[in-house]
């Protein structure tokens, strides 16, 4: 559905994108991960026909974004990372405007808009001015706007940014529904655990380069991300953390109010030996288990950090 080949974008001497290659099959939810300034929004803006690449090709449903932008626009719903709304319009007027802008006849819009408002849980706000909606509601309204012409592809740039936890959960539930509807979704987020639950594939981008791409589990396996052991003891937690720092297979130890998190490079046998050692030190162990490595761990393992060129 989305095909990117050797895509590059330069702003003078600054390379925002360097030879990006990406293929996203139909119906896939693709998580775009990377630090600020990595090139996520630039890639999305190119796919949304808002920016031209310096070189390379980007296609949506077979249509080149530079040669056939009109065809591409029919097939995409784009939600930018920062967006405004027309405050003086009512919720339904706002959707009617965008519906009409996609050449959807009024009779069709009259049926479609209540369904969309239902989908994004804004049915009770249909006659409210957009100005009176909360940020989370505006975000959901913007998502409804993206869907008004039933696009095959959704390009969502940080759709959960600035939302409170409840609004984030609501947004995530809507995205899950869209996934079930078979939409191809390309989504970027800073909040990695949110993505981990719903994405089929991820692409990690840093300094304009795609550093890893594929299924989360495959990338984890390929990178051999260290396992994280979670240990809870009755007392002397800080002392345990200090003693674990000196252990051979331990690369990092983090102590917080939930317990001690140990980045451990050993296998199962070494893990058993470590538990025996902790008990032999006289600590009363409440729990000792392997924490699930998540997208955040993968991201930290892959990206080097540091400033862009």
């Amino acid at each position, binding site marked *: 559905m989305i095909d990117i080949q050797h895509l590059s974008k330069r702003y003078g001497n600054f390379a925002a994108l360097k030879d990006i290659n990406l293929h996203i099959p139909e119906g896939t939810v693709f998580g775009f991960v*990377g630090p600020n300034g990595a090139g*996520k929004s*630039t890639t999305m803006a190119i796919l949304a026909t*808002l920016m*031209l*690449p310096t070189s390379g090709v980007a296609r949506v449903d077979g249509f080149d974004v530079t040669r056939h932008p009109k065809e591409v626009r029919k097939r995409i719903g784009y939600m930018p990372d920062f*967006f405004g*709304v027309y405050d003086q319009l009512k919720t339904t007027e706002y959707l009617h405007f965008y519906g009409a802008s996609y050449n959807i006849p009024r009779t069709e819009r009259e049926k479609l808009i209540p369904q969309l408002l239902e989908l994004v849980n804004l049915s009770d706000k249909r006659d409210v001015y957009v100005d009176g909606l909360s940020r989370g509601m505006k975000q959901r309204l913007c998502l409804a706007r993206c869907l008004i012409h039933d696009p095959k592809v959704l390009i969502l740039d940080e759709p959960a940014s600035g939302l409170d936890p409840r609004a984030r959960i609501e947004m995530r539930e809507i995205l899950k529904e869209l996934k079930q509807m078979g939409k191809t979704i390309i989504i970027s987020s800073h909040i990695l655990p949110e993505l981990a639950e719903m994405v089929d594939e991820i692409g990690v981008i840093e300094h304009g380069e795609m550093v890893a791409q594929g299924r989360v589990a495959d990338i984890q396996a390929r990178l051999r991300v260290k396992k994280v052991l979670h240990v809870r003891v009755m007392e002397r937690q800080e002392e345990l953390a200090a003693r674990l720092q000196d252990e051979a297979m331990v690369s990092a130890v983090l102590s917080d109010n939930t317990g001690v998190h140990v980045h451990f490079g050993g296998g199962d046998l070494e893990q058993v030996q470590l538990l025996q050692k902790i008990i032999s030190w006289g600590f009363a162990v409440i729990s000792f288990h392997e924490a699930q490595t998540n997208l955040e761990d993968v991201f930290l393992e892959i990206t080097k950090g540091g400033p862009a060129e």
Partner: protein
Amino acid sequence: MNWSRKWINPVLDKEFRLRMRTPRSAISLLAYVLVLGMIALGYIYVSLYLGRQGNHAFNSGAGRMMFYVLSFAQLVLIAFMAPALTAGVISGEREKQTLSMLLTTQQSSSTIILSKLFSSLSFMTLIVVATMPIYSIVFLYGGISLKQMIYIFLFYLFVMLLLGSLGVMFSTLFKRTMISVIVTYGVGLCIFLMTGLLYLFVMSIVQRNYFSMPTTATGPTYSFVGYILGLNPAGALISLFEPGFSKGAFLVRNGNLNSDAPIQLWQEFLLVYSVVIIGSLWISIRKIRPVAKRKLRKGTYDAPSVETGASDPS
């Protein structure tokens, strides 16, 4: 209504709704009519009670003069209003972060630009039409024909279109509304003031040269200087009031008012600025979205850097 659905596109519909829902529109309309009304009443007061002749009469000649005063005042007010209404139509959308979403819809670049311009011009037209009752005072005293009045209003429309097109163009080219407004006012100032001053300056040089020639020499009667005045809205407006004014603008020596001026000033004004309007709109339409320039080699594109409101990079 079917006709409105047919003729009013979504962008225009949205612009009309947004513009007329803010109290600012009603306040601007009121302020404009009040200013022009005060000028009219002030002129009548000055003519009746402070006139040199002290005859305290307001006759058709005074009515005609009042029409001129009102027309120039209106022209100046349009020069102030048009950039304010149009120089933020695209940059404002960009600043409100709504432009990128608008550009990903099926609306063409020309629809977006022309609808924005048309909605602004419609509001300006509403304001100018709202001043018509003030002009009716002139008709109480006579001295002005209805035809002249229609011509003047058509001329206003053209000036609004000119300043509006420039405003929309700068609004498309500059990211910030403030810069766009300043540049539009700057260009407006050049059109309104600089052309007039340039005319006076060049005319004085040309006339000095001609008068320094021996009296027996036969220099040309007309000079190119009139063309400079033809670029000035005030000059073009006067030529609409007084058809003989164009001859005077070109005439430098040996007055021969029977011969025709090379062109009427208002005609030159329309011709030159029509090109400017078309050029401004063309640039706006081209620049609002990134447009790939095809190179000779098939399959590759030259990619101009066009700001669209999408954050860059990442």
